[in-house]
């Protein structure tokens, strides 16, 4: 482990005050020894830098999929006091509300094994990759409604079921959204992209539940062994990216205006209560809502294709849950015995609310919030449940996925898209992408082990394993 880091538990480490000058709280991260082998010193530096920001509460945190990011590390969680604290786009990411949802189906593996025609239909039905545009054309007014009502707009427009909102973080929309704070440029990018998947590490994956760790919780979530599920991973598309670009520029100036000393320019921020802070938060929430609407539209397209191919009804493909992993939220947490509202930033981290917490579905109140953790292409994904331990230790947060260990340049040199496809096919996994580089870039070996990341959060108790899902087919941008 890096010099200066203190072990405080089996998988728990402290970055002490003074690791970088000006830290207001210690840093804390969760990591196993084996994941520690690929830990980047720069990521810990970033964790420590975040700890210098005004109004930060308790700890600057990072999950076991930690890696180097923009300002905040990926896998970073930080909560700020609403009066003294700041809000920072670096703590959310360019892809606002990049997140993931899981649909259950009544199908079994034998129904879809080898069905490349299904993969083809999904690939052509869900616009994917660079330059992809949606067949859906919304008006400027409809876009505003999307940004205010998120997934609710989509459901009420006929693209989903009421239960889709119950099983979505925030009920599918944040009420703090303010489309007026979203620039015309961002809106221009958003209009043609509703229902598109994007590229990079975004995907739509067909999976099978191949192991149940916790039968009672799996039953409550609607999961059973051998069941085919569909996982959708994408975010706020060009609209969210533009919002981040626009507001980063403003907040860089704001940090100087409010005389906020920052060790890293990429931690550009403003007081949450300032004009600039409120403007970013309103725009960020609007973008988050657009992302939820986007995932709902893709859900509808997917259900439509499955209905046509297999004759199953939409109600037979319920949403298990939808989680955001790049977002800032106002949440109430208990700090030193008192309930306080905080601005919780999660960048590459997932909410993991425990039993009896507000904003988890009533029917799941005794179980905890479902946590969906995607693997990388060809590796297992996981469903876990949130815990009270997460509420105490990490502002109700857990990991989001695997985190990269290999650069794209290295991937291009050592991996061939054709060989990756062939290798996955030998394991019974079909892959469809617009180009081979997209596949090589996202090969299983470029990521940390999702199993190891999830093992750490399970053993620490931030979220507990419920089910493992094995991929059968994937479409990628």
């Amino acid at each position, binding site marked *: 482990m890096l010099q200066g880091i203190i072990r405080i538990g089996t998988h728990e480490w402290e970055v002490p005050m003074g690791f970088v000058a000006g830290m207001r709280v210690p840093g804390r991260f969760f990591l196993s020894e084996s994941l520690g082998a690929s830990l*980047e010193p720069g990521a810990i530096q970033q964790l420590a830098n975040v700890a210098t920001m005004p109004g930060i509460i308790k700890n600057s945190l990072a999950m076991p999929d930690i*890696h180097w990011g923009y300002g905040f590390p990926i896998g970073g969680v930080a909560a700020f006091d609403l009066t003294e604290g700041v809000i920072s786009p670096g703590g959310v990411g360019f892809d606002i509300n990049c997140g993931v949802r899981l649909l259950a189906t009544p199908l079994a593996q034998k129904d879809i094994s080898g069905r490349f025609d299904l993969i083809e239909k999904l690939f052509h039905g869900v616009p994917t990759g*660079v*330059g992809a545009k949606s067949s859906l054309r919304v008006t400027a007014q409809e876009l505003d409604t999307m940004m205010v009502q998120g997934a609710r707009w989509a459901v009420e427009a006929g693209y989903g079921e009421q239960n889709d909102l119950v099983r979505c973080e925030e009920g599918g929309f944040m009420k703090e959204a303010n489309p007026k704070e979203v620039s015309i440029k961002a809106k*221009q990018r958003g209009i043609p992209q509703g229902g598109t998947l994007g590229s990079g590490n975004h995907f739509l994956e067909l999976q099978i539940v191949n192991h149940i760790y916790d039968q009672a919780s799996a039953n409550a979530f609607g999961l059973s062994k051998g069941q085919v599920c569909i996982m959708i991973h994408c975010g706020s598309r060009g609209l969210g990216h533009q919002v981040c670009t626009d507001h980063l520029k403003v907040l860089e100036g704001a940090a100087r205006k409010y005389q906020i000393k920052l060790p890293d320019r990429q931690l550009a921020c403003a007081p949450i209560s300032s004009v600039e802070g409120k403007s970013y938060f309103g725009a960020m929430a609007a973008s988050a809502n657009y992302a939820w609407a986007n995932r709902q539209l893709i859900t509808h397209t997917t259900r439509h294709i499955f209905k046509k191919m297999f004759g199953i009804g939409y109600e037979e493909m319920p949403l298990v849950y939808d989680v955001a992993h790049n977002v800032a939220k106002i949440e109430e947490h208990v700090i030193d015995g008192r309930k306080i509202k905080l601005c919780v930033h999660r960048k590459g981290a997932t909410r993991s609310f425990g039993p009896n917490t507000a904003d988890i579905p009533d029917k799941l109140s005794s179980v905890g919030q479902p946590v969906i953790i995607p693997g990388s292409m060809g590796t297992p994904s996981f469903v876990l449940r949130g815990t009270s331990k997460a509420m105490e230790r990490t502002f109700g947060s857990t990991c989001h996925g695997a985190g*990269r260990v290999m650069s794209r340049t290295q991937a291009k040199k050592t991996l061939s898209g054709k060989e990756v496809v062939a290798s996955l096919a030998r394991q019974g996994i079909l892959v469809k992408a617009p*180009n081979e580089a*997209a596949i090589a870039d996202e090969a299983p070996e470029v990521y940390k082990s999702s199993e190891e990341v999830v093992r750490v959060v399970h053993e620490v108790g931030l979220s507990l394993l419920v089910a493992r899902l094995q991929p059968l087919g994937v479409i990628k941008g």
Partner: protein
Amino acid sequence: MSYEEVPHTADVKIRIHARTLEELFSDACEALMTVMYGTSRKGIMKREIAVTSPHIDSLLLDFLSEILFISDVEGIVFSKAVVHIAGQNLSAEMEGEPFSKKIHAKGTEVKGISYTGLSIRHDANGYMVDIVFDV
């Protein structure tokens, strides 16, 4: 024109060397378009871009952000940028062609241009910058 992709775990990092500042900016545009669309790009249409920014580093970032925006919204894949810089003002004569899925779906989306290590350096050999594209 001289740029290369250098290792970066999560994103795409480009290192550019150029004799002049304008060439540096032009090469940065070339690098961005290659990452997004691949190398097969023709100049059959023209477009002008103008950007103003108080610092040369933020001028580069704003120029690339504007290219990203125009490319996304107007569906143009740029093949060339002839850049003129006067103080805080940049104007560029751009060439490109309409996006075609058959020809241009060879790259990956860029979500934004990062400030990470963005610092244009100048010595006797010319200008150099590292830019990170968030993918």
